[in-house]
């Protein structure tokens, strides 16, 4: 056995888990890693086609495919984090026979991987669209990176919470994917809050994913105004998310692993 510090062990386990997740998810497929682009491409094509036949742009000055791309990528990332973390404990139970691997590592590896997929798909698909002539000047790369980091913490907190929920309250775990469906339509993937009559803003703007997507669009496109996007709300929501995620995980993790 090699003598390692706790931080060193954490790093080793995270890297090993990442490699393992990549191999099991994409490794055995032909063109393996290209498949992770498939889902965003399908969404973008479908909605672009829909709006093309309806005529006009979704948002003035921003090509429709790019507008959808900037909305669908954060959403898919969030959706995957939620659904994968609900099953993270049961799917990795065999690994808990190695004392270094705990549910935290399983969740962290999955969230890190989803964000890596998010970033790679974003860069590749944006470049691909620019190459075929669909382009828009990029607004603010620093704002994008800051938001990316914030969103990562946001998703990590929620995933830690949901890995506990998924294992301890399987009934609630069945409900959450069902709730994700309406949330998909309310998160501004193919609209902006500016398109919605103001009397509905009170209700819709409670949804943090809507703000995340609006903020991503403001970071990406100079033409996007993002009047109603509230970065303060997202910062506070992220702090709450990671605080409660870590707290609930810390209270419950032994209960997740041990035999009962």
């Amino acid at each position: 056995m090699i003598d390692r510090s706790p931080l060193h062990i954490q790093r080793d386990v995270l890297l090993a888990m990442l490699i393992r997740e990549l191999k099991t998810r994409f490794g055995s497929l032909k063109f393996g890693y290209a498949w992770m682009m498939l889902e965003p491409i399908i969404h973008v094509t479908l909605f672009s086609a829909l709006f093309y036949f309806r005529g006009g742009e979704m948002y003035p000055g921003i090509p429709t495919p790019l507008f959808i791309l900037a909305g669908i990528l954060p959403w898919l990332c969030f959706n995957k984090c939620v659904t994968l973390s609900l099953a993270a404990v049961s799917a990795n139970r065999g690994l808990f026979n190695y004392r270094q691997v705990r549910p935290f590592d399983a969740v962290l590896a999955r969230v890190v991987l989803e964000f890596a997929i998010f970033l790679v798909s974003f860069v590749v698909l944006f470049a691909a669209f620019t190459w075929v002539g669909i382009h828009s000047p990029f607004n603010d790369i620093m704002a994008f990176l800051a938001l990316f980091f914030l969103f990562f913490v946001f998703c990590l907190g929620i995933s830690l919470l949901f890995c506990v929920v998924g294992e301890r309250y399987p009934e609630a775990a069945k409900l959450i994917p069902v709730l994700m469906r309406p949330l998909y339509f309310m998160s501004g993937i193919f609209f902006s809050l500016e398109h919605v009559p103001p009397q509905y803003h009170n209700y819709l703007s409670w949804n943090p994913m809507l703000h995340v997507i609006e903020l991503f669009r403001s970071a990406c496109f100079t033409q996007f105004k993002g009047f109603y996007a509230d970065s303060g709300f997202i910062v506070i929501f992220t702090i709450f998310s990671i605080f409660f995620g870590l707290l609930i995980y810390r209270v419950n993790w032994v209960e997740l692993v041990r035999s009962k």
Partner: protein
Amino acid sequence: MIEIQGLTKSYRTGRRRNYLFRDMDAIFPSGKNIGILGRNGAGKSTLLRIMGGIDYPDAGRITSNKTISWPMGLSGGFQGSMTGRENATFIGQVHGFWGKQRRRLLEQVEDFAELGDYFDMPVKTYSSGMRSKLAFGLSIAVHFDYYLVDEVMSVGDAHFRAKCEHVIEEKKKTSNFIIVAHSMGTLRKNCDIGVYLSKDGIEVHEDINTAIAKYENTGKQNSSNVKKLPV
């Protein structure tokens, strides 16, 4: 040394709680091989897994300054769609083997497990014997101060079993074993200290033979209560 303080562990059986250990204390001195015996359901495997840091008690703690292995020959952590090599790589990486050390580990496992081309095939194509060989090879290749053995000390065909026994004899020079087994021969051959888990609690015997005698005695008393069938 492994020290157990105030260990309590229970399982829910229907509406009741069934206690395996209640506020149990024990000290296992260094440099001794430990045999754990008791009837089915007495908590032998649970104790083994708690000592290995894999399972957790309801209360109490285990302290040790030694490294303790995962249960020897365990194949539950393998991912079926990954090859034997990939699975071995993962377990090596978790234990801190990267780069050159990882390569050496893989060579050792490949050499010991004798899987041939199957080492680069998905584990789901393995027979159960091949899985055990891979798992055993991995256990052998990573060094620990204590190895946990849950019944499985040798796997595979006669030739491979002999090889396992030989390598365990070698290991005994540098490491110790904590063994759960129902075979008294295995325990007598491999252990110094005997831990007997009974309904009344835990007994640590300095000599494995006294623990075995105690266990077999209790067994006899129980079997004398069985009504003899008319011939």
